[in-house]
């Protein structure tokens, strides 16, 4: 009875949301997205890179991205805290001994995944992709490494150093923006490079590579906590 009631309420909710969004969709043409048009038109003179989404993520709305990496950082810290307080056994009982297929496939696939992830990160401002995507790809590659039975102990201090330093460099680049152009996270290198080359777009590739390093390390941590705690 309770279930049927909940189902009814939510189907009513779904129908009303659908009507609401269809109405919005029909009234949308009168005020066509002001900020989207602005970003598309001024991207060429502001940052000079092909991927407009990247320039929005790292520059136009770069402050949101700082919030985003903060959230990832916090979630890893939280998972670390939870693992610590539940007891920490070094060698996992979760993983079975891998078969030959998994082992061989990992040996072949792992370098390719690494290369692909690095490509995605570095080309973030030219083609679809970027720090978060590439970092996640490399992080899943690391997961594969664990599945293949790599039992080496992780050097936690080193990964912590990489993690903290990369975010701090991002924030320091932002502060350099205050120094040069009197605005946090301003692109003070915007005149660098030509359209469509790897070195272009000023600080955008630098920021995306740093984000990629950080995301990689964080997802690596997460999968490590998951499989070995």
């Amino acid at each position, binding site marked *: 009875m309770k279930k049927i009631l909940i189902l009814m309420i939510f189907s009513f909710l779904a129908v009303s949301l659908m009507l609401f969004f269809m109405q919005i969709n029909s009234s949308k043409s009168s005020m066509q997205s002001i900020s*989207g048009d602005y970003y*598309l038109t001024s991207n060429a003179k502001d940052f000079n890179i092909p991927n407009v989404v990247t320039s929005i993520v790292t520059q136009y709305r770069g402050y949101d991205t700082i919030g985003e990496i903060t959230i990832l950082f916090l979630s890893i810290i939280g998972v670390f805290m*939870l693992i610590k307080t*539940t*007891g920490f056994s070094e060698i996992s009982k979760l993983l079975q001994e891998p078969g030959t297929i998994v082992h061989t496939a990992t040996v072949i696939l792992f370098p390719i995944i690494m290369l692909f992830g690095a490509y995605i990160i570095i080309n973030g401002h030219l083609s679809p992709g970027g720090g978060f995507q590439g970092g996640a790809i490399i992080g899943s590659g690391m997961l594969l490494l664990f599945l293949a039975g790599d039992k080496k102990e992780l050097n936690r201090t080193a990964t912590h150093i990489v993690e903290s330093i990369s975010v701090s460099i991002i924030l320091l680049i932002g502060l350099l923006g205050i120094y040069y152009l009197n605005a946090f996270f301003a692109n003070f290198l915007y005149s660098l490079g030509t359209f469509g080359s790897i070195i272009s777009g000023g600080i955008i590739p630098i920021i995306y590579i740093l984000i990629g390093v950080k995301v990689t390390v964080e997802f690596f941590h997460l999968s490590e906590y998951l499989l070995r705690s």
Partner: protein
Amino acid sequence: MALVLEILFYLNGIILLTGGLIIAIISRNIIKMIIGFVLAHTGVNIILVSTGYIFNRMPPILNKFQQTNNPAAISVDPVPQALVLTSIVIGVATTSLFMFYALRYYRDNGTIDRDSMEEHND
């Protein structure tokens, strides 16, 4: 044509959102509840991207010529896509914390059933 496509996008998003919430509220298993929230989050992301969709346009990755000649007329709205990138990462951060809290709870109390959790504690 365009309207049918837009309706389908919104329908997909809204069904995932409400279906995920239904799963989250009805199911007794806490892991299944988390799965419901993940589904609902995917649904909201689809809704958000479909607000920026315009029929017969390009993705917002444009070459030099396109960018200098009225790009606003040939590309879809890039803003919702940038927002969704942020939203997806936020979703995975929340999910991982939630899962590990469930794991810690399980290790202490030996149950992940929502109803028996209440009894267990009272």
